[in-house]
């Protein structure tokens, strides 16, 4: 069953077409990678789906409901969670409270929300930081905090935005396993990533965005042979001496 359908979605900033007519659909339980060079429109696409900005034109259907132009809190309440490319922690709150706030969406009491937050922090390997202020976290830990907060919302669709940046290779392996385990828990995943070896191994389907347009939507094996994709990443007429 289709969980998300995007149809001829456009968003311009002045004369710049950040997202220039993108269409795709995602089935429940899929793990879909989304890659593309810097400035391709990946974050804008996320902002459109998660309600941070409204589209100039086009349709977004989530669970067969038209949701273009909804607010971020509508998205969260309906089961769409996102992470931010640049982490946005609540700076004056402890790590566990950072996650507990999100867990409050589905837990009425503070105690229950904190318990759930601690469980999720254990999942992402941040359990030993739970009582500390979020300001002492490293970049890699902040990325994991973003993931924990998204999962605390009990989402049906989650949009990950470069969650591997700043992580060590071992951490990338652990985190990739966590992401790959989500579809089995009933969470559909769209995953923007620049750490390509992680996404190429974990995502059976990868979409490539370039200059606001979808230039490929295929399996990783086929993508590496796709000349359009190679051109977008490395430019034309690449010669290796």
């Amino acid at each position, binding site marked *: 069953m289709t969980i998300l359908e995007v149809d001829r979605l456009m968003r311009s900033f002045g004369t710049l077409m950040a997202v220039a007519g993108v269409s795709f659909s995602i089935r429940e339980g899929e793990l879909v990678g989304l890659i593309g060079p810097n400035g391709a429109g990946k974050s804008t696409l996320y902002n459109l789906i998660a309600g941070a900005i409204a589209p100039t034109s086009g349709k977004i259907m989530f669970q067969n409901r038209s949701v273009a132009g909804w607010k971020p809190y509508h998205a969260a309440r309906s089961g769409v969670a996102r992470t931010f490319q640049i982490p946005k922690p*609540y700076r004056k*709150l402890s790590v566990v409270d950072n996650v507990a706030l999100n867990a409050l969406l589905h837990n009425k009491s503070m105690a229950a929300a904190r318990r759930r937050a601690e469980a999720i922090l254990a999942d992402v390997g941040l359990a030993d930081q*739970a009582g500390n*202020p979020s300001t002492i976290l490293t970049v890699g830990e902040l990325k994991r905090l973003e993931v924990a907060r998204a999962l605390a919302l009990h989402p049906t669709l989650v949009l990950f935005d470069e969650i591997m940046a700043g992580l060590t290779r071992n951490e990338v392996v652990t985190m990739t396993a966590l992401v790959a385990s989500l579809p089995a828990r009933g969470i559909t995943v769209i995953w923007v990533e620049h750490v390509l070896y992680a996404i190429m191994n974990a995502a059976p389907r990868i979409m490539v965005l370039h200059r606001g347009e979808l230039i490929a939507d295929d399996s990783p094996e086929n993508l590496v042979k796709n000349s359009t994709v190679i051109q977008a990443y490395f430019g034309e007429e690449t010669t290796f001496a």
Partner: protein
Amino acid sequence: MSVTSKSTIETKPRRASPGRWWMKPGHGSVSWLELALLVACIALVVAPVPHSYQDVINITLLWGGVALSWNIAGGYAGLISFGHAAFFGIGAYTSTILLVNYGVSPWLGLWLGGIFAAAFGITLALIGARLRGPFFILSTLAAAEVVRIGALNWTSLTGGAEGLWITPTKSIANMVFASRSAYVALVLGYAIIVYLVSKAIERSRYGLVLFAVRDDEDAASAAGVNPLTARTGAMGLSAFLTAIGGSLFAQYFQFLDPTYVISPELSFQFALLAALGGLGTAIGPALGAIVIMPLSELLRSYLGAAFQGLHLAIYGGFLVFVMLYLPGGIASALERSTGRSKETP
């Protein structure tokens, strides 16, 4: 998704530590410091204190209560306001006009003043919904000026620049008491209530929501929080409690004029007490008022007449000292002095 809590989760001990014994007695939620302050305040109310000192105690407690009210918007929700004198004035004028012109008891009037102020605060938060940082601050300053100028010119209602007098017909129903101790007790009750409300917010889910909106609105919004609802609620409650302080002020001093009661100076003072004490905690504004108000009042009474302006210079110097050497306010300096650095929510 079902994530089961593992019993082996490692968590560092939360906040409470031997180094800060005065913060947490046992499992209780009230600290030794808070208990000591409460006992000291009650002692001052009961003790036979000369009248002039009772004035100092009274204004310290009243300004403390208002600084705590300010802190609900400014400290918890990040809505720094330089316009709280407007709410204070709305409370003071509402209960006073009702008493003087219509014979309505201030015990009722203060609620109505609170409701008017809350409505005004919510309107302000809605109008300033898209304003952040300095721009929001300026909008509150401007709004309070509108109220002040309105009160100055609507002479038929407010008496304009000549002000309003509450002619003291002593009765409990009129909230006009024979003894000053009764006023001080009343104001202490107010300060304690606002303090308890603040503590309740800090510990509630609503408090966590406010902190989140304050720290990062985008993230809070992506967590299902409507930031506008959170902000309007905090501003409304803050304005309501500030206005009640205004009504109590009017009953104690029995005279009101817009130039003082709705002045920017008063707005700054409320914000300053909270900021110097420590934003975002209940103990901060309380400590701010307890340290700064007696200092400024005593300096004025001892030095005000003899050396014109000297008390202001000393007061100003003290404020600069606190800002330079006690970042985060008096409360966080106290906490650091016990040898552990940490952030307060």
